[in-house]
């Protein structure tokens, strides 16, 4: 392994890990304020939605239709595998058709 390559990867690893530690330590303090606690409680849903919206925005009709199918399936089935597998199968079929 080349030392300069290892150095680059270690720098990436350090940055990536430091962000998490910083977020965790800040989160610890936020718990003391009720309003910030409310924000923290809603943060997971907000992050998830913000993760998925650009992915869908970059897709087309096939992805959007498959997304609706996933949403409906996930609403009725609690087992993650079902909507996930359904979504992948639907997107392959829809891409072939649309």
């Amino acid at each position, binding site marked *: 392994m080349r030392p300069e390559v290892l150095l680059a990867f270690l720098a990436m690893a350090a940055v990536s890990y430091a962000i998490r530690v910083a977020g965790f330590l800040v989160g610890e303090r936020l718990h003391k304020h009720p309003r910030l606690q409310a*924000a923290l409680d809603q943060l997971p849903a907000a992050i998830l939605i913000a993760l*998925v919206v*650009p992915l869908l925005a970059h897709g087309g009709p096939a992805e959007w239709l498959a997304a609706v199918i996933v949403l409906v399936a996930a609403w009725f089935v609690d087992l993650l595998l079902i909507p996930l597998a359904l979504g992948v199968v639907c997107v392959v079929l829809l891409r072939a058709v649309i």
Partner: protein
Amino acid sequence: MLAPMPTPSPSLLTASRAAFLAGLARCAPVALGVLAYGLVFGALAEQAGLSIGETAFMSAFVYSGSAQFVALGLWALPPPVLALAGTTLLINFRFFLIAATMNRVLRGWPRPRALLALFWVSDENWAITMTEGDRPNWGAFFLGTGVLLYLAWLSASILGYMLGAVVADPKRWGLDFAFTAMFLALAVGLARKRRAPLVWIASAGAALLADRLIGGSTPVLVGGLAGAAVAALRPRGSDAS
């Protein structure tokens, strides 16, 4: 990573082991998607001119799918260390928000162990952990999800490197949609438990706007913060907004 509890009574250990295994099981479908992407990453790393040891080292220590893919795009010799570190900071800044939500999961853990566990936080296993709600032994559950995805990513990177160009384009199998489908399904799970439509609208709208105006990895940050801001500002004591 299942270090013994301070007072290791057998029932406590059994309970946390059961939670760990539940995390493994709940994460298994997602591990397949991670496996597929790890294979692609390994194949691309080989094409970029990394050695197999370097590829394994990167997946083992950087452990961040999107940052690793982008790093291959920037790859040159000697490696542009500052550009790589800066890009990693931008792409992974969302983990600042994500880690802020981990306090509840790792509640009661000694500080050093909790900080160490943060290494195994990824988008996918974090999302699955969050939909579990306040389950007992939540931290052990999280570790189960984390360990499985870590092993999947690491082993698939190495395997993909060895298979090289044989690894198919994930789009052909619809696997590129697997993560979209998973995030959607998990969002529905969270939404059912706690209804806050204003928060969802703010998050989706801000993410869309950031995606159009700035792009890159900013939508997650902007959307997450916008949703959290709406949650903080809404009238106190009201659970429906």
